[in-house]
Protein backbone atom coordinates (compact mmCIF):
# COMPACT_ATOMS: atom_id res chain seq x y z
CA UNK A 1 0.00 0.00 0.00
CA UNK A 2 2.72 2.35 1.05
CA UNK A 3 4.70 1.82 -2.13
CA UNK A 4 1.76 2.54 -4.38
CA UNK A 5 1.14 5.79 -2.56
CA UNK A 6 4.75 6.78 -2.89
CA UNK A 7 4.87 6.59 -6.67
CA UNK A 8 1.77 8.61 -7.35
CA UNK A 9 2.61 11.05 -4.61
CA UNK A 10 6.10 11.83 -5.81
CA UNK A 11 4.83 12.35 -9.32
CA UNK A 12 2.01 14.62 -8.26
CA UNK A 13 4.32 16.60 -6.06
CA UNK A 14 6.86 17.23 -8.76
CA UNK A 15 4.13 18.44 -11.07
CA UNK A 16 2.93 20.78 -8.39
CA UNK A 17 6.30 22.46 -8.12
CA UNK A 18 6.06 23.60 -11.71
CA UNK A 19 2.81 25.38 -11.29
CA UNK A 20 2.52 27.46 -8.23
CA UNK A 21 1.17 30.66 -9.57
CA UNK A 22 -1.65 29.86 -11.89
CA UNK A 23 -3.97 27.08 -10.94
CA UNK A 24 -5.59 26.24 -14.28
CA UNK A 25 -2.42 25.17 -16.03
CA UNK A 26 -1.72 22.39 -13.52
CA UNK A 27 -4.64 20.33 -14.75
CA UNK A 28 -3.94 21.33 -18.34
CA UNK A 29 -0.39 20.16 -18.12
CA UNK A 30 -1.20 16.75 -16.67
CA UNK A 31 -3.91 16.43 -19.27
CA UNK A 32 -1.45 17.18 -22.07
CA UNK A 33 1.00 14.59 -20.76
CA UNK A 34 -1.79 12.07 -20.59
CA UNK A 35 -3.04 12.90 -24.09
CA UNK A 36 0.41 12.38 -25.53
CA UNK A 37 0.90 9.21 -23.54
CA UNK A 38 -2.35 7.84 -24.94
CA UNK A 39 -1.07 7.98 -28.49
CA UNK A 40 1.53 5.31 -27.72
CA UNK A 41 0.06 1.82 -27.40
CA UNK A 42 3.25 0.54 -25.79
CA UNK A 43 3.21 3.23 -23.13
CA UNK A 44 -0.44 2.52 -22.41
CA UNK A 45 0.31 -1.19 -22.08
CA UNK A 46 3.13 -0.35 -19.68
CA UNK A 47 0.86 1.92 -17.71
CA UNK A 48 -1.75 -0.83 -17.61
CA UNK A 49 0.73 -3.36 -16.26
CA UNK A 50 1.99 -0.98 -13.57
CA UNK A 51 -1.57 -0.14 -12.58
CA UNK A 52 -2.51 -3.81 -12.43
CA UNK A 53 0.54 -4.85 -10.40
CA UNK A 54 0.09 -1.93 -8.02
CA UNK A 55 -3.60 -2.68 -7.58
CA UNK A 56 -2.91 -6.35 -6.95
CA UNK A 57 -0.27 -5.44 -4.37
CA UNK A 58 -2.54 -2.88 -2.77
CA UNK A 59 -5.53 -5.18 -2.61
CA UNK A 60 -3.56 -8.33 -1.75
CA UNK A 61 -5.47 -8.96 1.50
CA UNK A 62 -8.77 -8.76 -0.38
CA UNK A 63 -7.77 -10.75 -3.46
CA UNK A 64 -5.50 -13.40 -2.00
CA UNK A 65 -7.45 -16.65 -1.63
CA UNK A 66 -5.28 -17.85 1.26
CA UNK A 67 -3.17 -16.43 4.04
CA UNK A 68 0.31 -16.43 2.48
CA UNK A 69 1.71 -18.12 5.57
CA UNK A 70 -1.02 -20.75 5.89
CA UNK A 71 0.40 -24.21 5.37
CA UNK A 72 -1.50 -26.87 3.46
CA UNK A 73 -0.61 -29.70 1.09
CA UNK A 74 2.88 -29.28 -0.28
CA UNK A 75 3.85 -28.98 -3.94
CA UNK A 76 0.36 -29.09 -5.39
CA UNK A 77 0.49 -28.30 -9.12
CA UNK A 78 -1.71 -25.47 -10.44
CA UNK A 79 -5.36 -26.41 -9.99
CA UNK A 80 -8.70 -24.82 -9.27
CA UNK A 81 -7.94 -24.95 -5.56
CA UNK A 82 -4.51 -23.38 -5.91
CA UNK A 83 -4.35 -21.43 -9.18
CA UNK A 84 -0.59 -21.31 -9.23
CA UNK A 85 0.04 -24.35 -7.07
CA UNK A 86 1.68 -24.51 -3.65
CA UNK A 87 5.33 -24.37 -2.66
CA UNK A 88 7.54 -26.84 -0.79
CA UNK A 89 6.07 -25.69 2.51
CA UNK A 90 2.50 -25.98 1.31
CA UNK A 91 1.76 -22.28 0.92
CA UNK A 92 -0.43 -20.94 -1.87
CA UNK A 93 1.81 -19.51 -4.63
CA UNK A 94 -0.76 -17.01 -5.90
CA UNK A 95 -1.15 -15.47 -2.45
CA UNK A 96 2.62 -15.45 -1.97
CA UNK A 97 3.15 -13.61 -5.26
CA UNK A 98 0.48 -11.03 -4.41
CA UNK A 99 2.11 -10.28 -1.06
CA UNK A 100 5.55 -10.48 -2.62
CA UNK A 101 4.54 -7.73 -5.05
CA UNK A 102 4.18 -5.39 -2.08
CA UNK A 103 7.72 -5.99 -0.96
CA UNK A 104 9.26 -5.97 -4.42
CA UNK A 105 7.49 -2.76 -5.41
CA UNK A 106 8.43 -1.16 -2.14
CA UNK A 107 12.08 -2.09 -2.70
CA UNK A 108 12.06 -0.70 -6.24
CA UNK A 109 10.38 2.57 -5.39
CA UNK A 110 12.27 3.20 -2.16
CA UNK A 111 15.63 2.51 -3.78
CA UNK A 112 14.77 4.84 -6.68
CA UNK A 113 13.80 7.58 -4.24
CA UNK A 114 17.17 7.16 -2.53
CA UNK A 115 18.90 7.20 -5.90
CA UNK A 116 17.12 10.44 -6.83
CA UNK A 117 17.96 11.98 -3.47
CA UNK A 118 21.68 11.18 -3.68
CA UNK A 119 21.98 11.64 -7.43
CA UNK A 120 20.25 14.99 -7.36
CA UNK A 121 22.24 16.34 -4.43
CA UNK A 122 25.57 15.29 -5.89
CA UNK A 123 24.78 16.05 -9.53
CA UNK A 124 23.37 19.46 -8.65
CA UNK A 125 26.32 20.50 -6.53
CA UNK A 126 28.74 19.25 -9.12
CA UNK A 127 27.03 20.82 -12.10
CA UNK A 128 26.09 24.18 -10.65
CA UNK A 129 29.22 25.03 -8.74
CA UNK A 130 31.77 23.26 -10.94
CA UNK A 131 35.48 23.68 -10.31
CA UNK A 132 37.20 21.64 -7.65
CA UNK A 133 33.92 20.49 -6.07
CA UNK A 134 32.87 19.04 -9.41
CA UNK A 135 36.24 17.38 -9.85
CA UNK A 136 36.13 15.60 -6.48
CA UNK A 137 32.52 14.49 -6.75
CA UNK A 138 32.91 13.22 -10.29
CA UNK A 139 36.01 11.18 -9.47
CA UNK A 140 34.04 9.62 -6.61
CA UNK A 141 31.25 8.85 -9.07
CA UNK A 142 33.73 7.28 -11.49
CA UNK A 143 35.15 5.18 -8.69
CA UNK A 144 31.77 3.74 -7.75
CA UNK A 145 30.86 3.19 -11.39
CA UNK A 146 34.02 1.23 -12.10
CA UNK A 147 33.66 -1.09 -9.13
CA UNK A 148 31.80 -4.33 -9.99
CA UNK A 149 28.27 -3.93 -8.69
CA UNK A 150 27.42 -7.39 -7.45
CA UNK A 151 30.46 -8.05 -5.21
CA UNK A 152 30.17 -4.49 -3.96
CA UNK A 153 26.55 -4.96 -2.97
CA UNK A 154 27.23 -8.36 -1.41
CA UNK A 155 30.11 -7.13 0.69
CA UNK A 156 28.20 -4.10 1.91
CA UNK A 157 25.12 -6.15 2.78
CA UNK A 158 27.34 -8.46 4.82
CA UNK A 159 28.74 -5.46 6.70
CA UNK A 160 25.31 -4.89 8.17
CA UNK A 161 24.45 -7.18 11.06
CA UNK A 162 20.82 -7.87 10.38
CA UNK A 163 19.14 -9.20 7.27
CA UNK A 164 16.48 -6.69 6.40
CA UNK A 165 14.82 -5.41 3.25
CA UNK A 166 15.63 -1.86 4.27
CA UNK A 167 19.31 -2.69 4.52
CA UNK A 168 19.22 -3.91 0.94
CA UNK A 169 17.34 -0.77 -0.15
CA UNK A 170 19.87 1.42 1.61
CA UNK A 171 22.86 -0.38 0.12
CA UNK A 172 21.39 -0.22 -3.37
CA UNK A 173 20.67 3.46 -2.84
CA UNK A 174 24.23 4.13 -1.72
CA UNK A 175 25.68 2.60 -4.86
CA UNK A 176 22.90 3.32 -7.32
CA UNK A 177 23.20 7.10 -7.66
CA UNK A 178 26.26 7.61 -9.91
CA UNK A 179 24.35 7.34 -13.19
CA UNK A 180 21.64 9.72 -11.99
CA UNK A 181 24.27 12.12 -10.66
CA UNK A 182 26.02 12.16 -14.03
CA UNK A 183 22.84 12.92 -15.92
CA UNK A 184 21.80 15.63 -13.47
CA UNK A 185 25.27 17.16 -13.64
CA UNK A 186 25.37 17.27 -17.42
CA UNK A 187 21.90 18.80 -17.56
CA UNK A 188 22.94 21.42 -15.03
CA UNK A 189 26.07 22.21 -17.01
CA UNK A 190 24.00 22.81 -20.11
CA UNK A 191 21.16 24.68 -18.41
CA UNK A 192 23.23 27.02 -16.30
CA UNK A 193 24.59 28.56 -19.51
CA UNK A 194 21.17 29.22 -21.01
CA UNK A 195 19.89 32.71 -21.54
CA UNK A 196 16.91 32.18 -19.30
CA UNK A 197 19.16 31.34 -16.37
CA UNK A 198 21.26 34.39 -17.19
CA UNK A 199 18.05 36.42 -17.39
CA UNK A 200 16.93 35.10 -14.02
CA UNK A 201 20.26 36.12 -12.53
CA UNK A 202 19.94 39.54 -14.10
CA UNK A 203 16.59 39.88 -12.34
CA UNK A 204 18.25 39.29 -8.98
CA UNK A 205 17.41 35.63 -8.33
CA UNK A 206 19.53 33.80 -5.73
CA UNK A 207 21.53 30.69 -6.69
CA UNK A 208 19.12 28.56 -4.68
CA UNK A 209 16.17 30.02 -6.51
CA UNK A 210 17.83 29.46 -9.85
CA UNK A 211 18.56 25.85 -8.99
CA UNK A 212 15.14 25.02 -7.64
CA UNK A 213 12.87 27.19 -9.75
CA UNK A 214 14.69 27.45 -13.05
CA UNK A 215 16.94 24.47 -13.56
CA UNK A 216 15.26 21.64 -11.64
CA UNK A 217 11.86 21.90 -13.33
CA UNK A 218 13.62 21.62 -16.65
CA UNK A 219 15.24 18.32 -15.76
CA UNK A 220 12.29 16.94 -13.86
CA UNK A 221 11.08 14.92 -16.81
CA UNK A 222 14.51 13.35 -17.24
CA UNK A 223 14.58 12.41 -13.57
CA UNK A 224 11.08 10.95 -13.69
CA UNK A 225 11.90 8.91 -16.79
CA UNK A 226 15.16 7.53 -15.41
CA UNK A 227 13.51 6.89 -12.05
CA UNK A 228 10.67 4.96 -13.65
CA UNK A 229 13.01 2.85 -15.70
CA UNK A 230 15.27 2.15 -12.72
CA UNK A 231 12.50 0.73 -10.55
CA UNK A 232 12.63 -2.75 -12.18
CA UNK A 233 16.41 -2.58 -12.09
CA UNK A 234 16.32 -2.35 -8.30
CA UNK A 235 13.65 -5.02 -8.05
CA UNK A 236 16.02 -7.24 -10.04
CA UNK A 237 19.02 -6.46 -7.87
CA UNK A 238 17.05 -7.19 -4.74
CA UNK A 239 15.96 -10.49 -6.30
CA UNK A 240 19.57 -11.25 -7.20
CA UNK A 241 20.87 -10.53 -3.73
CA UNK A 242 18.09 -12.55 -2.20
CA UNK A 243 18.56 -15.38 -4.67
CA UNK A 244 22.18 -15.60 -3.61
CA UNK A 245 21.02 -15.91 -0.04
CA UNK A 246 21.73 -12.39 1.18
CA UNK A 247 18.11 -11.37 1.52
CA UNK A 248 15.61 -11.27 4.30
CA UNK A 249 13.64 -14.55 4.27
CA UNK A 250 11.09 -13.10 6.67
CA UNK A 251 9.82 -10.66 4.05
CA UNK A 252 9.04 -12.87 1.07
CA UNK A 253 9.71 -10.67 -1.96
CA UNK A 254 9.69 -12.19 -5.43
CA UNK A 255 13.41 -12.71 -5.07
CA UNK A 256 12.88 -14.80 -1.95
CA UNK A 257 10.29 -16.89 -3.82
CA UNK A 258 12.77 -17.49 -6.65
CA UNK A 259 15.48 -18.38 -4.19
CA UNK A 260 13.21 -20.90 -2.47
CA UNK A 261 11.93 -22.26 -5.76
CA UNK A 262 15.02 -22.99 -7.75
CA UNK A 263 15.92 -26.26 -6.02
CA UNK A 264 12.55 -27.68 -7.01
CA UNK A 265 12.80 -26.51 -10.57
CA UNK A 266 13.06 -29.94 -12.21
CA UNK A 267 10.01 -31.46 -10.63
CA UNK A 268 7.83 -28.56 -9.52
CA UNK A 269 8.32 -25.94 -12.25
CA UNK A 270 5.51 -23.68 -11.01
CA UNK A 271 7.29 -22.70 -7.82
CA UNK A 272 9.91 -20.70 -9.66
CA UNK A 273 8.14 -19.90 -12.95
CA UNK A 274 5.30 -17.75 -11.66
CA UNK A 275 7.36 -15.38 -9.48
CA UNK A 276 9.75 -15.14 -12.45
CA UNK A 277 6.92 -14.20 -14.78
CA UNK A 278 5.63 -11.61 -12.30
CA UNK A 279 9.08 -10.07 -12.22
CA UNK A 280 9.34 -10.11 -15.99
CA UNK A 281 6.00 -8.41 -16.66
CA UNK A 282 6.47 -5.80 -13.97
CA UNK A 283 9.86 -4.90 -15.38
CA UNK A 284 8.42 -4.77 -18.89
CA UNK A 285 5.63 -2.50 -17.68
CA UNK A 286 7.96 0.03 -16.09
CA UNK A 287 10.23 0.08 -19.12
CA UNK A 288 7.43 0.60 -21.63
CA UNK A 289 5.85 3.27 -19.48
CA UNK A 290 9.18 5.04 -18.94
CA UNK A 291 9.77 5.16 -22.67
CA UNK A 292 6.37 6.64 -23.36
CA UNK A 293 6.76 9.10 -20.51
CA UNK A 294 9.98 10.42 -21.98
CA UNK A 295 8.18 11.50 -25.13
CA UNK A 296 5.08 12.72 -23.33
CA UNK A 297 6.93 14.93 -20.84
CA UNK A 298 8.73 16.98 -23.45
CA UNK A 299 6.95 20.32 -23.07
CA UNK A 300 8.08 21.85 -26.32
CA UNK A 301 6.62 19.12 -28.51
CA UNK A 302 3.09 19.01 -27.27
CA UNK A 303 0.66 16.71 -29.02
CA UNK A 304 -2.08 18.70 -30.65
Amino acid at each position, binding site marked *: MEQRLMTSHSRAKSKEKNEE*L*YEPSKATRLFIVWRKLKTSKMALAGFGIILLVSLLALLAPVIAPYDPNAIGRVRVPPSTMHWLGTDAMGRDMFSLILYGARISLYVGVAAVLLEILFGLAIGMTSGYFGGIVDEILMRLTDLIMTLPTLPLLLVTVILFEQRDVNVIVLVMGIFGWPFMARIVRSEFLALRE*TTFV*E*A*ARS*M*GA*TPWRIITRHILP*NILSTIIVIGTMDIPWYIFWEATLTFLGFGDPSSPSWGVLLWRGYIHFRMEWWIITFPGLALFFTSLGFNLFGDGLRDALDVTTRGR
Partner: protein
Amino acid sequence: MSESLLLNINNLKTHFVLAEGVVQAVDGVHLAIGKEEVLGLVGESGCGKSTVALSILRLIRPPGKIVGGEIWFEGEDLLRKSEGEMREIRGGKISMVFQNPTSSMNPVYTVGSQIAEAIKLHQDVQKRQMKEKVVEILHKVGIPDPSKRTEDYPHEYSGGMCQRAMMAMALSCNPKLLIADEPTTNLDVTIQAQILDLMRTLRKDFGASILLIGHNLGVIDEFCDKVAVMYAGKVVEYSDITTIFKKPKHPYTQALLESIPRLDVEKERLRIIPGTVPRLIDPPAGCRFHPRCEYAMAVCGEQEPTPVEVGRGHTVACFLHTSEG
Protein backbone atom coordinates in the same frame (compact mmCIF):
# COMPACT_ATOMS: atom_id res chain seq x y z
CA MET B 1 31.27 63.15 -10.58
CA SER B 2 28.54 65.32 -11.94
CA GLU B 3 25.07 65.20 -10.38
CA SER B 4 23.23 64.41 -13.59
CA LEU B 5 25.11 61.17 -14.17
CA LEU B 6 23.34 57.93 -13.36
CA LEU B 7 26.12 55.54 -14.21
CA ASN B 8 29.81 56.28 -14.45
CA ILE B 9 32.22 53.55 -15.40
CA ASN B 10 35.81 54.31 -14.68
CA ASN B 11 38.71 52.30 -16.08
CA LEU B 12 36.80 49.02 -15.99
CA LYS B 13 38.89 45.93 -16.63
CA THR B 14 37.32 42.51 -17.06
CA HIS B 15 39.60 39.65 -17.92
CA PHE B 16 39.06 35.98 -18.64
CA VAL B 17 41.77 33.68 -17.37
CA LEU B 18 42.07 30.72 -19.74
CA ALA B 19 44.65 28.00 -20.08
CA GLU B 20 46.10 29.72 -23.18
CA GLY B 21 46.42 33.06 -21.45
CA VAL B 22 44.49 36.03 -20.18
CA VAL B 23 41.80 37.41 -22.47
CA GLN B 24 41.57 41.14 -21.86
CA ALA B 25 37.94 41.37 -22.98
CA VAL B 26 37.39 44.77 -21.39
CA ASP B 27 40.53 46.73 -20.74
CA GLY B 28 40.16 50.17 -19.23
CA VAL B 29 36.71 51.25 -20.37
CA HIS B 30 35.29 54.64 -19.40
CA LEU B 31 31.60 55.26 -19.92
CA ALA B 32 29.01 57.59 -18.53
CA ILE B 33 25.25 57.61 -18.80
CA GLY B 34 23.17 60.56 -17.70
CA LYS B 35 19.70 60.38 -16.23
CA GLU B 36 17.06 59.50 -18.82
CA GLU B 37 19.74 59.32 -21.44
CA VAL B 38 20.21 56.62 -24.05
CA LEU B 39 23.76 55.55 -24.69
CA GLY B 40 24.60 53.35 -27.63
CA LEU B 41 27.56 51.01 -27.34
CA VAL B 42 28.74 49.84 -30.74
CA GLY B 43 31.54 47.69 -32.04
CA GLU B 44 32.29 44.49 -33.89
CA SER B 45 31.46 41.09 -32.46
CA GLY B 46 33.85 40.08 -29.73
CA CYS B 47 35.00 43.60 -28.88
CA GLY B 48 33.69 43.36 -25.31
CA LYS B 49 30.31 45.09 -25.52
CA SER B 50 28.37 42.35 -23.78
CA THR B 51 31.13 41.90 -21.23
CA VAL B 52 30.72 45.56 -20.25
CA ALA B 53 26.98 44.98 -19.82
CA LEU B 54 27.45 41.88 -17.69
CA SER B 55 30.15 43.62 -15.66
CA ILE B 56 27.74 46.38 -14.69
CA LEU B 57 25.42 43.78 -13.20
CA ARG B 58 28.39 41.84 -11.85
CA LEU B 59 27.22 38.76 -13.69
CA ILE B 60 30.66 37.83 -14.98
CA ARG B 61 31.33 34.22 -14.10
CA PRO B 62 34.55 32.26 -13.86
CA PRO B 63 36.89 32.11 -15.69
CA GLY B 64 35.97 35.77 -16.13
CA LYS B 65 36.76 38.33 -13.46
CA ILE B 66 36.47 42.06 -13.00
CA VAL B 67 40.06 42.92 -12.18
CA GLY B 68 39.91 46.65 -11.80
CA GLY B 69 38.04 49.92 -12.11
CA GLU B 70 34.97 51.48 -10.62
CA ILE B 71 31.32 51.41 -11.58
CA TRP B 72 29.53 54.32 -9.95
CA PHE B 73 25.77 54.01 -9.89
CA GLU B 74 23.69 56.54 -7.95
CA GLY B 75 26.75 57.57 -6.00
CA GLU B 76 27.84 54.08 -5.01
CA ASP B 77 30.53 51.83 -6.43
CA LEU B 78 28.84 48.63 -7.57
CA LEU B 79 32.13 46.76 -7.48
CA ARG B 80 32.30 47.23 -3.71
CA LYS B 81 28.81 45.91 -3.06
CA SER B 82 28.13 42.52 -1.54
CA GLU B 83 26.48 39.82 -3.60
CA GLY B 84 23.26 40.27 -1.60
CA GLU B 85 23.19 44.00 -2.29
CA MET B 86 23.81 43.34 -5.96
CA ARG B 87 20.80 41.04 -6.09
CA GLU B 88 18.64 43.90 -4.87
CA ILE B 89 19.97 46.04 -7.68
CA ARG B 90 19.62 43.43 -10.40
CA GLY B 91 16.12 43.61 -11.72
CA GLY B 92 15.27 46.28 -9.17
CA LYS B 93 17.32 49.26 -10.23
CA ILE B 94 19.17 47.89 -13.22
CA SER B 95 17.66 45.29 -15.47
CA MET B 96 18.67 43.70 -18.68
CA VAL B 97 17.15 42.46 -21.91
CA PHE B 98 19.04 39.83 -23.87
CA GLN B 99 19.52 39.19 -27.53
CA ASN B 100 17.72 35.86 -27.87
CA PRO B 101 14.17 36.60 -26.77
CA THR B 102 12.86 33.08 -27.33
CA SER B 103 15.53 31.48 -25.15
CA SER B 104 15.39 34.18 -22.48
CA MET B 105 12.29 32.59 -21.05
CA ASN B 106 12.16 29.42 -19.04
CA PRO B 107 10.28 26.93 -21.21
CA VAL B 108 8.52 25.19 -18.33
CA TYR B 109 6.66 28.20 -16.92
CA THR B 110 3.91 30.32 -18.38
CA VAL B 111 4.95 33.81 -19.44
CA GLY B 112 2.68 35.31 -16.80
CA SER B 113 4.18 33.32 -13.96
CA GLN B 114 7.68 34.31 -15.01
CA ILE B 115 6.83 38.00 -14.96
CA ALA B 116 5.08 37.49 -11.63
CA GLU B 117 8.20 35.85 -10.28
CA ALA B 118 10.35 38.80 -11.34
CA ILE B 119 7.96 41.17 -9.56
CA LYS B 120 7.91 38.99 -6.47
CA LEU B 121 11.68 39.19 -6.17
CA HIS B 122 11.58 42.93 -5.59
CA GLN B 123 8.12 43.92 -4.48
CA ASP B 124 5.46 42.82 -2.04
CA VAL B 125 2.43 42.15 -4.13
CA GLN B 126 -0.54 40.10 -3.00
CA LYS B 127 -1.34 37.03 -5.03
CA ARG B 128 -4.66 38.46 -6.15
CA GLN B 129 -3.23 41.77 -7.33
CA MET B 130 -0.33 40.01 -8.97
CA LYS B 131 -2.39 38.76 -11.85
CA GLU B 132 -3.76 42.25 -12.51
CA LYS B 133 -0.30 43.70 -12.36
CA VAL B 134 1.08 41.15 -14.81
CA VAL B 135 -1.78 41.72 -17.22
CA GLU B 136 -1.35 45.47 -16.93
CA ILE B 137 2.34 45.38 -17.73
CA LEU B 138 1.86 42.97 -20.63
CA HIS B 139 -0.77 45.35 -21.94
CA LYS B 140 1.73 48.21 -21.67
CA VAL B 141 4.28 46.44 -23.84
CA GLY B 142 1.63 45.75 -26.43
CA ILE B 143 0.74 42.09 -26.02
CA PRO B 144 -2.74 41.63 -27.49
CA ASP B 145 -5.36 40.06 -25.22
CA PRO B 146 -2.95 40.02 -22.26
CA SER B 147 -5.23 38.36 -19.71
CA LYS B 148 -5.39 35.31 -21.91
CA ARG B 149 -1.80 35.34 -23.07
CA THR B 150 -0.39 35.28 -19.51
CA GLU B 151 -1.36 31.62 -19.44
CA ASP B 152 0.71 30.81 -22.51
CA TYR B 153 4.07 29.12 -22.48
CA PRO B 154 7.04 30.87 -24.12
CA HIS B 155 7.02 28.54 -27.12
CA GLU B 156 3.51 29.73 -27.90
CA TYR B 157 4.85 33.29 -28.26
CA SER B 158 6.56 34.62 -31.36
CA GLY B 159 10.07 36.07 -31.15
CA GLY B 160 8.78 39.64 -31.11
CA MET B 161 6.21 38.85 -28.42
CA CYS B 162 8.87 37.14 -26.32
CA GLN B 163 11.00 40.26 -26.51
CA ARG B 164 7.99 42.38 -25.50
CA ALA B 165 7.41 40.04 -22.57
CA MET B 166 11.09 40.25 -21.62
CA MET B 167 10.82 44.03 -21.63
CA ALA B 168 7.73 43.74 -19.47
CA MET B 169 9.75 41.65 -17.07
CA ALA B 170 12.71 44.01 -17.13
CA LEU B 171 10.53 47.06 -16.58
CA SER B 172 8.22 45.47 -14.02
CA CYS B 173 10.10 47.00 -11.09
CA ASN B 174 10.68 50.43 -12.64
CA PRO B 175 14.45 50.22 -13.05
CA LYS B 176 16.60 53.32 -13.32
CA LEU B 177 18.75 51.73 -15.98
CA LEU B 178 17.81 49.29 -18.69
CA ILE B 179 20.59 47.43 -20.41
CA ALA B 180 19.50 46.15 -23.80
CA ASP B 181 22.02 43.77 -25.30
CA GLU B 182 21.25 43.69 -29.02
CA PRO B 183 17.53 43.42 -28.31
CA THR B 184 16.54 43.33 -31.96
CA THR B 185 19.24 41.08 -33.38
CA ASN B 186 17.25 37.92 -33.94
CA LEU B 187 14.04 39.59 -35.02
CA ASP B 188 12.94 40.43 -38.53
CA VAL B 189 13.01 44.03 -39.69
CA THR B 190 9.38 45.01 -39.11
CA ILE B 191 9.46 43.51 -35.62
CA GLN B 192 12.75 45.33 -35.00
CA ALA B 193 11.05 48.60 -35.78
CA GLN B 194 8.15 47.74 -33.47
CA ILE B 195 10.48 46.86 -30.62
CA LEU B 196 12.38 50.11 -31.09
CA ASP B 197 9.11 52.04 -31.08
CA LEU B 198 8.17 50.26 -27.92
CA MET B 199 11.50 51.12 -26.30
CA ARG B 200 10.96 54.73 -27.22
CA THR B 201 7.52 54.79 -25.60
CA LEU B 202 8.72 52.94 -22.56
CA ARG B 203 11.59 55.33 -22.15
CA LYS B 204 9.10 58.18 -21.96
CA ASP B 205 6.70 56.31 -19.66
CA PHE B 206 9.22 54.84 -17.28
CA GLY B 207 11.90 57.54 -17.43
CA ALA B 208 14.71 55.03 -17.41
CA SER B 209 18.17 55.48 -18.84
CA ILE B 210 19.06 52.94 -21.45
CA LEU B 211 22.34 51.35 -22.44
CA LEU B 212 21.73 50.01 -25.92
CA ILE B 213 24.30 47.58 -27.17
CA GLY B 214 24.38 46.81 -30.85
CA HIS B 215 26.29 46.61 -34.05
CA ASN B 216 23.47 47.94 -36.15
CA LEU B 217 24.39 51.58 -36.59
CA GLY B 218 21.03 52.37 -38.13
CA VAL B 219 19.30 51.36 -34.92
CA ILE B 220 21.79 53.31 -32.82
CA ASP B 221 21.41 56.42 -34.97
CA GLU B 222 17.65 56.35 -34.66
CA PHE B 223 17.45 55.83 -30.97
CA CYS B 224 20.44 57.06 -28.97
CA ASP B 225 21.52 60.38 -27.50
CA LYS B 226 25.16 59.42 -27.21
CA VAL B 227 27.38 56.78 -28.67
CA ALA B 228 30.48 55.01 -27.46
CA VAL B 229 32.46 53.09 -30.05
CA MET B 230 34.36 50.10 -28.74
CA TYR B 231 37.26 48.35 -30.35
CA ALA B 232 39.10 45.35 -28.90
CA GLY B 233 38.14 45.97 -25.29
CA LYS B 234 38.54 49.75 -25.30
CA VAL B 235 36.32 52.73 -25.99
CA VAL B 236 37.94 54.56 -28.89
CA GLU B 237 35.43 57.35 -29.37
CA TYR B 238 32.62 58.79 -27.32
CA SER B 239 30.32 61.57 -28.35
CA ASP B 240 26.76 62.70 -28.90
CA ILE B 241 24.95 61.11 -31.77
CA THR B 242 25.06 63.90 -34.34
CA THR B 243 28.75 64.60 -33.91
CA ILE B 244 29.74 61.03 -34.28
CA PHE B 245 27.72 60.49 -37.41
CA LYS B 246 28.67 63.84 -39.01
CA LYS B 247 32.25 64.31 -37.86
CA PRO B 248 33.76 61.04 -36.68
CA LYS B 249 37.36 61.54 -35.55
CA HIS B 250 38.72 58.08 -34.88
CA PRO B 251 39.83 56.18 -38.01
CA TYR B 252 37.95 53.11 -36.79
CA THR B 253 34.69 55.04 -36.39
CA GLN B 254 35.17 56.58 -39.80
CA ALA B 255 35.77 53.20 -41.37
CA LEU B 256 32.80 51.72 -39.55
CA LEU B 257 30.49 54.46 -40.81
CA GLU B 258 31.75 54.14 -44.36
CA SER B 259 31.09 50.45 -44.32
CA ILE B 260 27.32 50.79 -43.99
CA PRO B 261 25.17 51.31 -47.07
CA ARG B 262 23.42 54.68 -47.30
CA LEU B 263 20.58 55.77 -49.51
CA ASP B 264 21.70 59.38 -49.83
CA VAL B 265 25.23 58.78 -51.05
CA GLU B 266 26.18 57.23 -54.40
CA LYS B 267 28.93 54.72 -53.95
CA GLU B 268 30.46 52.00 -56.07
CA ARG B 269 31.64 49.79 -53.27
CA LEU B 270 31.29 49.85 -49.54
CA ARG B 271 34.36 50.35 -47.42
CA ILE B 272 35.97 47.24 -45.99
CA ILE B 273 38.19 47.38 -42.93
CA PRO B 274 41.13 45.10 -43.74
CA GLY B 275 42.13 42.44 -41.26
CA THR B 276 40.18 41.07 -38.31
CA VAL B 277 39.61 41.98 -34.69
CA PRO B 278 42.80 41.07 -32.81
CA ARG B 279 42.88 38.16 -30.43
CA LEU B 280 42.53 39.66 -27.00
CA ILE B 281 44.95 37.18 -25.45
CA ASP B 282 47.86 39.05 -27.00
CA PRO B 283 46.51 42.37 -28.28
CA PRO B 284 48.80 44.50 -30.45
CA ALA B 285 51.06 46.84 -28.52
CA GLY B 286 50.20 50.51 -28.50
CA CYS B 287 46.92 51.44 -30.15
CA ARG B 288 44.99 48.22 -30.67
CA PHE B 289 43.69 49.39 -34.01
CA HIS B 290 47.03 50.33 -35.55
CA PRO B 291 47.62 47.13 -37.56
CA ARG B 292 44.41 47.82 -39.48
CA CYS B 293 44.63 51.60 -39.50
CA GLU B 294 45.42 53.44 -42.73
CA TYR B 295 46.83 56.45 -40.86
CA ALA B 296 49.08 54.40 -38.57
CA MET B 297 52.22 56.21 -37.48
CA ALA B 298 55.34 54.99 -35.71
CA VAL B 299 54.06 56.10 -32.33
CA CYS B 300 50.87 54.07 -32.69
CA GLY B 301 52.70 50.78 -32.28
CA GLU B 302 54.66 51.97 -29.28
CA GLN B 303 52.36 53.88 -27.01
CA GLU B 304 48.77 53.57 -26.05
CA PRO B 305 46.74 56.66 -26.89
CA THR B 306 44.79 58.18 -24.01
CA PRO B 307 41.34 59.60 -24.62
CA VAL B 308 41.43 63.34 -25.26
CA GLU B 309 38.58 65.78 -25.53
CA VAL B 310 38.37 67.15 -29.04
CA GLY B 311 35.05 68.90 -28.68
CA ARG B 312 32.29 69.41 -26.14
CA GLY B 313 31.68 65.93 -24.70
CA HIS B 314 33.54 64.35 -27.56
CA THR B 315 36.54 62.21 -26.65
CA VAL B 316 38.80 60.26 -28.95
CA ALA B 317 41.67 57.92 -28.18
CA CYS B 318 43.94 58.41 -31.16
CA PHE B 319 47.35 59.99 -31.76
CA LEU B 320 46.05 61.81 -34.82
CA HIS B 321 44.16 64.02 -32.43
CA THR B 322 46.47 64.30 -29.46
CA SER B 323 48.75 66.57 -31.44
CA GLU B 324 45.84 68.81 -32.38
CA GLY B 325 44.40 68.90 -28.87
